[in-house]
């Protein structure tokens, strides 16, 4: 089972980063791979169990469900329900931890999924680079813009 782990240090306090990440319906505001996002059934985006429908910049659509959200731990977990990409049983976890030395943020983003063996390498690379790494850079830019 492929396991993707990426992490980064952001030069901002965890509260500022969490403020961006906790909105399960707000990734289209900062992530370059995501064009639009809506929550199904008009539910609140911090209601655990809500489903977001996301259109990617290439036009394809996917649905993801919020599995866990904690303002105390600054963590969130979600899974893919429907996707045009052969990522199955995809569950991802986002976790923020404070870097007390300098009031910065350690951001940990990981997932596991199943796929056909011949796709494993390509999809691991795609999730790692185009989703997670690109996400780190995008939130850095987003926070800089907001400042």
């Amino acid at each position, binding site marked *: 089972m492929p396991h993707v782990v990426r*992490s980064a240090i952001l030069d901002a306090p965890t509260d500022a980063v969490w403020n961006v990440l906790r909105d399960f319906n707000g990734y289209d505001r900062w992530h370059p791979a995501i064009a639009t996002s809506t929550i199904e059934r008009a539910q609140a985006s911090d209601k655990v169990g809500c489903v977001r429908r996301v259109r990617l910049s290439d036009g394809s659509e996917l649905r993801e469900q919020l599995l866990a959200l904690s303002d105390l731990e600054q963590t969130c977990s979600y899974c893919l329900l429907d996707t045009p990409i052969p990522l199955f049983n995809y569950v991802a976890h986002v976790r923020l931890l404070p870097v007390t030395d300098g009031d910065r943020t350690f951001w940990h983003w990981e997932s596991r999924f199943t796929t056909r063996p011949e796709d494993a390498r390509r999809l691991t690379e795609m999730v790692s680079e185009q989703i997670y790494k690109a996400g780190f850079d995008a939130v850095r830019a987003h926070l800089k813009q907001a400042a």
Partner: protein
Amino acid sequence: MARVYVSTVVNARNDRVWARVRDFNGMPNWHPAIAESRIEGGEAPDKIGCVRDFRLRNGDRIREKLLGLSDYDMFCTYSILESPMGVENYVATLRLTPVTDGDQTFLEWTAEFDCAPDREAELISNIGGGVFQGGFDALKRAFGG
């Protein structure tokens, strides 16, 4: 119960940082506050349950017991058996996590303990700001940032 949480980032891969800090008897090699250390009973310093008896540069003597050590998750947990600090039920953990974006290491050092209420703030400051951050500063210097 008082809690201490201190964290930092060191400019080196986690395996290099781990090689420096995993030796339960090796604090004098990297922590500026520790003068000397030995493991009681001639046991190996990575044998769970071993006890280190060390002396700080200020003369204080502390005995600590190794409760957990993981080369896989890169953490080390230990308790204080004897110290002049006035703490009870003291358990601390030093944990390393890789920062994939830039080959750095995220270090967390946490402790929980009981003490007299009027000494809590002072102890948190001494342990967190003094001992833990002092160790982090030394590691940052050793690894160039």
